[in-house]
């Protein structure tokens, strides 16, 4: 617990972060310091415990219980997929957005490609198709869930098309295949930087065939 200048100010910044009063440029560094330094984690716990007790005596708890609780939760969190939510508020990513604005048409292109993909999927799905047809998209849900990054808002859009093709037979069309191949670059991401799980999985799928 050395109180030299640097250490003292790192702790003071963490204290400001606890109150939501730290400048955004310092958030990442302070969080990283917390993750690396057990002494800072002990401070963090002590400060919040102090705040809780000041508000209400019955929030005083056995510190050992708190520690066990958090250790257990940490091991559960380790098993969870990492969150990457869309709409970053980070100033750096906003700059990227501005730069990308002149190329708005590529967003429209991505949407158009998505429509073509969906329409194309409907066009080749024949519920009572011949027995030689292959079930090509049947494993699409697996490729989505296996992704280590959870882009939760995208799940609503993925659910429907997957459900439609999951138990249907799909005929491969050489012309459509070539079209999808040629337009693959539009399908993975949009210009807004929002990953679209459905478009990506469909593209990967066509590439795998």
């Amino acid at each position, binding site marked *: 617990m050395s109180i030299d200048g640097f250490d003292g100010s790192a702790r003071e910044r963490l204290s400001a972060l606890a109150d939501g009063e730290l400048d955004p440029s310092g958030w990442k560094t302070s969080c990283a310091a917390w993750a690396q330094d057990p002494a800072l984690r002990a401070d963090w716990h002590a400060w919040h415990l102090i705040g*809780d007790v000041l508000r209400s005596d019955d929030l005083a708890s056995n510190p050992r219980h708190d520690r066990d609780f958090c250790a257990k939760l940490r091991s559960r969190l380790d098993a969870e997929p990492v969150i990457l939510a869309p709409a970053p508020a980070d100033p750096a990513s906003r700059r990227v957005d501005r730069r990308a604005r002149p190329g708005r048409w590529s967003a429209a292109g991505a949407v158009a490609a998505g429509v073509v993909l969906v329409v194309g999927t409907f066009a080749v799905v024949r519920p009572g198709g011949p027995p030689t047809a292959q079930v090509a998209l049947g494993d699409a849900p697996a490729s989505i869930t296996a992704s280590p990054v959870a882009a939760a808002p995208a799940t609503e859009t993925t659910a429907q098309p997957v459900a439609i093709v999951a138990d249907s037979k799909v005929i491969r069309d050489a012309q459509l295949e070539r079209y999808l191949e040629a337009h693959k670059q539009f399908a993975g991401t949009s210009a807004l930087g929002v990953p679209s799980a459905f478009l990506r999985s469909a593209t990967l799928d066509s590439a795998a065939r």
Partner: protein
Amino acid sequence: MNAPDADAPLVERVKQGDVKAFEMLVVKYQRRIERLIGRMVRDVDLVPDIAQETFIRAYRALPQFRGDSAFYTWLYRIAVNTAKKSLMELKRDPLVTESARAGRDEDDDNPRVENEPSDAATPDAVLASKQIAAAVNFAVEALSEDLRQAITLREIEGLSYEEIAELMNCPIGTVRSRIFRAREAIAARLRPLLDTREGDRW
């Protein structure tokens, strides 16, 4: 009060993939969430499990959290729903928990020595939390007037640094430093009670 959510920075970090920032929120809110659940669920052994479930659900749902309410308000709702769901499951499929079993005299087939009571309920733990409350209150009394006022306005009144600066007629930087020094002074008195014995650390 329309103050910006003090948790917004940490929530933002979590959304950018920083799991550790979520742990910081857990350390902050675990006591409040457990107390809330403890008021809904009688069986003390179930409280930590439901609290764990609450935080995991909150973590999974965080991408949908848009900041329309304060983070804690949102977490509070998840805790209430998780506790309700557990109570309903318990009604459908009643299981005998440790504390319920300990209360039954006739059940000789399940020797109680195997079932250690959970750490939140032991007399030692109750004593430890009472000592902590006493130490905090004592340490706050011992602070200088400036430090005590700053930490009280922040923690009890929930004021922002700017509001405190206005009330105390000093720069914001001074408020930040006073609150930090107050925390350090109180934590120094708590440390003997918080220090760990068997090398388990934060």
